[in-house]
C-alpha cells in the first residue's frame, strides 16, 4: 500500500517542528532554511499552512531533468533526487508548478521531499496531526467521515 502525506492546515500552529525534523533527518542539523517542507504564515488571516511536494505521478521535475537525476522510488512512490547524478542545473525548479523542489547553495544540488524513505519525520514530529502519513488511496477519508457525521439519520424510537 502506498502512502501519502496528508496536510490539514487548519490544525497547524506554525511551530516549525516539521521543518526542524526534516532538516535534521536530511542534513543532520536543526535548520528550517534547509527543510523540504515549509510552513507559511498568513498573518492578517491568522492562518498557518505547511506545504511540500505532492509526489506527482507524472512529475514535471522528473521529466524535465536532462540527466535523469530524479527517479521514482519503487517502495514509496516518491520522486527522489540522485545527488551524485544531479548537476545543479535547476531546470526542475523551474518546471515544478508548486515550487517544492529547490536548489541548495551549500551542496550545489537540488533538494526535495523523499518521504524519508517511508517514515516521514515531519509527520512524526507534528504535535497537532496537521501532517499525517496515510493510505494514498484514501486521503479524503477523514474529511468524508467528518461530513458523514453531519448526516441526520438518528434512529427514531
Amino acid at each position, binding site marked *: 500500500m502506498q502512502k501519502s502525506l496528508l496536510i490539514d492546515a487548519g490544525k497547524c500552529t506554525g511551530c516549525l517542528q516539521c521543518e*526542524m525534523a526534516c532538516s*535534521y533527518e536530511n542534513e543532520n542539523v*536543526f535548520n528550517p532554511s534547509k527543510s523540504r517542507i515549509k510552513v507559511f504564515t498568513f498573518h492578517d488571516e*491568522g492562518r498557518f499552512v505547511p506545504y511540500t511536494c505532492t509526489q506527482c505521478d507524472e512529475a514535471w521535475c522528473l521529466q524535465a531533468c536532462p540527466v535523469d537525476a530524479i527517479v521514482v522510488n519503487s517502495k514509496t512512490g516518491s520522486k527522489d533526487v540522485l545527488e551524485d547524478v544531479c548537476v545543479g542545473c535547476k531546470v526542475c525548479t523551474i518546471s515544478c508548478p508548486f515550487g517544492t523542489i529547490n536548489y541548495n547553495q551549500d551542496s550545489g544540488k537540488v533538494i526535495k521531499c523523499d518521504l524519508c524513505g517511508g517514515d516521514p519525520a515531519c509527520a512524526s514530529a507534528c504535535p*497537532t496531526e496537521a501532517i499525517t502519513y496515510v493510505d494514498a488511496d484514501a486521503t479524503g477519508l477523514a474529511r468524508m467521515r467528518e461530513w458523514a457525521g453531519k448526516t441526520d439519520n438518528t434512529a427514531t424510537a
Partner: protein
Amino acid sequence: MAWTKKVLRVNLTEGTCIGEPLNMEWADQYLGQRGLATRYMCEEVDPTCDALSSENKMIMATGPLTGTMASTGGRYSVICKSPLTGAIACSNSGGFIGAELKNAGWDMIIFEGKSPDPVYLHLENEKAELLPAGELWGKSVWEADEMLHKIHQDPQMRIAAVGRAAEEGCLYSAIINDLHRAAGRSGVGTVMASKNLKAVCVRGTRGVGNIKDPARFMKSTAEQKQVLAENAVTGQGLPTYGTQVLMNVINELGALPTRNMQEVKFEGAHNISGEAMLEPRASDGKANLTTNAGCFACTIACGRISTIDQTHFSVENKPQYWGNSGGLEYEAAWAMGTDTGVDDLDAVTYVNFLCNEDGIDPITFGATVAAAMEMFKDGDLTTEHTGGVELEFGSAKALAWAAEVTCRGEGFGRDLGLGSRRLCEKYGRPELSMTVKSQEFPAYDPRGIQGMGLAYATSNRGACHLRGYTVASEVLGIPEKTDPLVTEGKAGLVKAFQDATAAVDSAGLCVFTTFAWSLENIAPQIDAACEGDWSVDKLAEIGERIWNLERDFNNKAGMTSADDTLPQRLLTEPANTGPAEGKVCGLDEMLPEYYELRGWTTEGELTDDVRGKFNLPV
C-alpha cells in the same frame, strides 16, 4: 555544545560589529540566555550607571536549547539595566527571532555605546552591518517591519524593533519581535531606543548542530513532548484558552486585583475571559479568537491570534486593525481590562494591538492607567490634565485614548509613559502606585495568594509573576497543592520556584513547560545536547547562582531590603470579599525566613559564604 560559542559585539558608538568567542567557563556556570547574559552584564556594566546612558549595555541572548527541537526551544531574552526600576532587567520573548539568531551562528549579541544617528542591525549569518534607520525613525513597529522586509526583499528575515513609544521615552517600552511577541517588561525597548537602535533584522541559514548526543537528544525531546501533550494544562487548557484560562479561575478565588487593586473580584471578568474569546459575536458571527499559535518549536501553542469586531468604536474606519494579530494573554487582559474596570473585549483587544504596534508593556501600561483612574476619581487628576477626557474606571473609550496617546508620546500620554510610581508621585498620591521597585504588579492579588506577595517583593526585576510563579502550587496544585491563604512554608516555595525558573529561562525554554515539567524532565534534554554533565542538582545550583548574581547587581545599584516590600494597600487594606476576605498580605511573616533560606544577611545582602559557594564575582 548546543551553544554556537560565538558572541557578536556591536559597538554603536564606533559603528563596529565584531565576533568573539563565548566565555565557556561562564557557560558552564550560568548555562545561557538570562544567566549567562547577566554574568556578562556584571562584568562589563557599572550597576550604578544611568540606564539610558551609553554606559548601559543591552544583550540579546539565546540559550543552548534555543533553535533545537526541544519543545518551546525558541526563547531569547533581553538583558540590560532597567530605566523603569533601576534594577537588572531581563525580558523574555518567544516568536522566531531567537531561533533565527542561533541559526545565524550566534549565541548572543551585546550592544554597547550609543549611535550618533538612528541605525538598525542587519545580520545575515556571519555578515553583520549597521545601516541607517533615518526613514524608520518615527515609525511604529508594524510599519518598520514592513519597510525592512521591503528594503531587503527577504520575506523570511526575522525582525525585532522598537516603536514610537520607545523613541518618545516611555519608560516601559517593549522590544517587539515577529510583529506581536514581546520582550515586554522593565523598559528594555526604552534602552534600545536610547542607543538610537531602531531594529534588529536576522536571517540565519547555518542551522543549529553541535548536539552532543543527537540520538539521545531526539529520544529525550520526543518523550518530553509527550509529557506536555498528556498534561491537562499544557495539553488542553493552554492550547484552548491560552493563559486566559485563568481569568475566571482567579476571579472565583477572590484573587483578581480589580480597579487598581481596590477590590479582589471583578463583576465583568467573564466578558474578557478566555471563554468569552471563543464566543461568536453578534455582528459577524465570528469569535474574537481565530486560532491558537505556537512560537518556534513550541508544542503547547498557547498563543492567541484574534480579530476585533469591525463594527466596534475603536476600529471604525481603521482597516489596518481589521486583520488578525496577537490576541489577549491573561496578564494583558487583566491589566487593561480588570484593573481599569473595562470589560469590553474588543476595546481591550484593540489596546493590546496598539501595545504590539508601538511596543509598550501592557501590564505596566494597564496598571498605570488604573492608578490614573483612581486619581481621577479622587480629583487629583482632572479633565484639564487629560485634555477633556473623562478618565473613569470602566470607560473603554478612555482606555483606548490612553493607549493611543501613550504609544505616540502625545500630551498626557507622556505622563502615562512614566509608569505609575512616577505618575502618582507627580500628582501627589505615591501610595496609589501598585508597584515593587517601580514595576507594576501582574494579575494575582497577594492577599488571596500569599506566596505571590513574597515573590513580588523579592523579584529581582520588580513586581513580576514570571520570577517565582507560586500560583502553580497555591492555585493549580503543581507540583503539590499548598494553601494560598497561609504564609507558612511560602519562603521555601518562593525560593524553589525562583531558582528553578532561572535555570529554565537560561536553557532557552519557556517557563510554561513547568506546568508539566520539573528540572527532572529538563535536565536529560540539556544533558543530551550540551557538553559536560547536566544533572538536576547542577541546574538547581545554576538557578540559585543566577538569582544571587541578579540580587548582587541590584544591591550594587543601591537597592536594599527596604525595596523588598509591597504597597501599603496590600499590607494594610484587607480583601473585601471572597475566600481571602479580611486578609492582608503577611509579607513580614515570610521575608525574614526567605533571607535566611537564601543565606543573606537580615539586610538582604549577600554574605561571603554565599559568594564563595556560588563562585560569584566580588
